[in-house]
């Protein structure tokens, strides 16, 4: 997947949801690739902070260097510090240049925002960790009932009950079945 198309998708996300943080952008891109099969070609691995790809950070940095987006420091309502990614005047030209590719995946971006747009960065870390593990468990044919404990081992600040609830919600929304 070439850089311009990846920047096109990043631009579309920022256009649709200005003010997104860096962590949320990382997790949205994971979701687009894993759930909605947008062929972005990033390689995600699991860390204590959920699925992460250094290539995504490179592309966000490049978009900033090229003045396609701006990134401001902010303080969230929960007191945590973070970032706000905003569109710039140049963003529209990227959207136009990559309009064909974006059009193919416009619905995927919109669906991601609709399903996850009200979640904060901490919650997105948990949800994407659940999805990553679900996909890995399915691929390896491991017992699915072990997922909540494994998620808890990676994200020990979330209790098993919360993890089970989120797993159930993702299942009910039909998201998990798309993550295979």
């Amino acid at each position, binding site marked *: 997947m070439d850089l311009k198309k990846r920047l096109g998708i990043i631009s579309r996300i920022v256009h649709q949801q200005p003010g997104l943080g860096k*962590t949320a952008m990382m997790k949205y891109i994971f979701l687009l690739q894993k759930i909605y*099969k947008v062929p972005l070609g990033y390689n995600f691995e699991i860390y*204590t902070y*959920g699925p992460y790809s250094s290539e995504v950070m490179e592309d966000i940095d490049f978009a900033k*260097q090229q003045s396609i987006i701006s990134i401001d420091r902010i303080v969230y309502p929960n007191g*945590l510090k*973070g970032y706000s990614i905003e569109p710039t005047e140049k963003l529209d030209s990227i959207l136009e240049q990559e309009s064909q590719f974006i059009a193919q995946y416009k619905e995927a971006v919109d669906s991601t925002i609709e399903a996850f747009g009200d979640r904060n960065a*901490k919650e997105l870390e948990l949800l994407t960790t659940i999805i990553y593990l679900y996909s890995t468990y399915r691929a*390896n044919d491991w017992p699915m009932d072990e997922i909540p404990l494994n998620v808890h*081992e990676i994200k020990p600040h979330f209790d098993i009950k919360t993890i089970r609830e989120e797993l159930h919600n993702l299942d009910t929304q039909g998201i998990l079945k798309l993550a295979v």
Partner: protein
Amino acid sequence: MVYPGANHTRFEHSIGVMQMASDMFDSIITKKQNLLSDELSLDTSSIQVYRKIIRLAALLHDVGHAPFSHSGEDLMPLLPKGHIGYVEGQEKRYEHEDYSIEIIKTVFKNIIEQHPIIKVEDVTALLGDKTVRPPKASLIIWKDLISGQLDADRADYLLRDSKHLGVSYGLYDRDRLVSCMTVGKMEETEALRLAIEEKGWHLAESLVIARYQMFSQVYFHRVRRIYDYHIYRATKSVLENKGLCGVYPSPTQISDYLKFDDWAINAALQEGLGDMHGAIIINRKHFKCLEKTSDNPSEDEEAQIKARAQDYENQGIECYLDDKASTSWYRLDKDIAIEEHNNIQPLSEKSSIVKAMNEKPRLLRLYVERAREGRGR
């Protein structure tokens, strides 16, 4: 070719990475054992076991590299349908990490599992093995030491390459880096990750500058880059001439893959199995770089250099347009995490030099075969 003193191998690098990872681990445990215990339930009995797992992962992290390292990565086969990393519509290849994991699981399993507690999967999990259950946070956090912004791999190869190449860049204060290693909480989510203490942020800055200099002056040197291409093409010919469809055996045929090392490929080149590019390597008559774009080329620049390459091709002149900068294995990872009062912020918040740096250049270079370099103009 470019740096005649650079005869060091991955073996000594691997030992260096093991030592670096051990020193970093010890430094962090010394100062943050309580935090790791409170946040991730890291108990004292696990520390010595984890230290051994990390040392093994560091020692073996590169064991799957193809002959001549990264230049062989495009000769690894495509992931088959059904593979855990396969994505419909995308052509993804196996990576050297896949081979490392397979070699550890086969060749080294019996040796590793002579330890009463450690399983081979504990080691491969730190190398990104997607066929083993992700380990608990108190172990997975150390993955950053093996493949992260501050990993022991890059910390070692910068100094090692600099020394063997005989260049004066790539240098930073190794002992100070180790002593400033710590963990902190990420700003947006409070998840723990490895970082450098705030008092060492100038050191982090010097590390990024060292990476940048080695990248631009050494790893991306125009002659070094074209030999990557010649090695790739010559090795592809060798593999074809040996009836292997131009790609290495996959990790599922690991004993066949292990038959290929630098010496085997060198011998094949001497036998003429590398065809035209093999001869170029033996005779040191590499393609010459005739044109290049700026580090971040405009669309016009890109179009111009691509049109020039097309001109050469139309005239039957062999050329190579190197546009792999953006997909290179090398990562600047400039935003090293800096920890202050247990919280993390990126280095670019502290350093205006780092803030202004591009993550990586995206230049294109046009190379043309030597005997005919003047004919396309």
